[in-house]
């Protein structure tokens, strides 16, 4: 069954992107659908890494508040909350995303050899 969906940005989307992964995937001989699917899975990995990086900086009460805001998609409040609780948050999100991107690129390099 095919399903057309409109997708949304997340609260951290202005900080990180997967263009470099997209470029790397473009160098492989994949169908459009395969590239799209792999990119989606790469996003899932990025997403988990960023959530873990943020949650690891919060205490139990703040974790719950953060997750509630995320579940409700209240991006502005998420930033208000996180900026009050975590120092150098944007840097930490960027570092975490770079780490997972590095791992994903390593996997792509492996299939090229």
């Amino acid at each position, binding site marked *: *069954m*095919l*399903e*057309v*969906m*409109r*997708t*949304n*940005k*997340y*609260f951290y*989307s202005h900080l990180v*992107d*997967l263009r470099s992964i997209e470029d790397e995937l473009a160098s*492989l*001989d*994949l*169908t459009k*659908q*395969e590239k*799209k*699917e*792999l990119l*989606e*899975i*790469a*996003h*899932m*990995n990025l*997403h*988990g*890494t960023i*959530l*873990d990086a943020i*949650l*690891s900086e919060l205490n*139990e009460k703040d*974790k*719950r508040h953060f*997750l*509630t805001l*995320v*579940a*409700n*998609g209240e991006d502005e409040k998420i930033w208000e909350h996180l900026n009050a609780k975590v120092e150098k948050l944007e840097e930490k999100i960027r570092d975490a995303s770079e780490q997972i991107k590095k*791992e*994903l690129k390593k*996997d*792509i390099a*492996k*299939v090229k050899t």
Partner: protein
Amino acid sequence: MVSVKRSHYRFLRKKWLKKHNLARKKLHEKHKEAIDWVIERFPAKEQLASSAIGTLMLSNFIPTATVLGSISQDPVEIEVVSKVDRTNQLLDELSQSVPDKVRPLSGDEELKISAILSKYYAMDVRTDINGLRLNRSFGVIGAEQHLVRFPGDTMATHLDQAERNNKIIYSSGMAPGRGAWGYFAKSKAEFTDADREREKWYIAVQTFSVPNYNQRLSDYRDFFKWRKMLVVNPKGGQALVADIADSGPALWTGKHLGGSPEVMYSLGFSEGSRKGPVLYFFINDVDDKIPLGPIDVGSYENK
């Protein structure tokens, strides 16, 4: 022959999904209380599914399109293939081999049913392993209590907040004795996540009533301990991977196996008489890679 192009795609897909599943499991373990708390309280599962947390934690239970679509970076229209729920297909196929009334299955029926379960759950499901087996593979499961996991474990320490809010799971109480293998851990300090999962998803089976038990005593001694079994409700389609942690129930009870409160809840037997018919077959998980807990049809395909 698989082309290079296809192998690139398959390699990356398999590797990245594995990485994601592992990360998701670790994330849940690390921030379990907060994640369970928000999942428990969020009113609409569909709405949560489309959020950042739902994407990560509920992806086993909702259509792939919803999961994948919800995490795209740019607001673009994409086409993705939904994962078709094949549970009804499984139930249709099972209905042709599983008797209406609970009774021991014939060898032929056991073979057919184990083949069906192996196909749908993408794992090696068997009636026996190296000739070792239970007295039956189709029977009535009844509700058991929680088991003491380590010295000093009580209902106050046994459940997390989300579980305490589930009256069915909380009200079951703790069994007075220990499980067939004793404590799950020697002390609270040595208690691990694996121990927690073993108690949570345990079943009790009639080890005392297996064929040739006395002739193969040494083989059977270690065979049953924490042995993984696939337990399936053939009417409702609920299924889970359980482990054997206790012996029972007695033959006179009319029941053939018992399930922890979590097992009974997941199989759809947490209300009314709290018992019902299930298929229970061994899983030949040589590398111990299949986690305990509820599963969907096709959960382990491509793994």
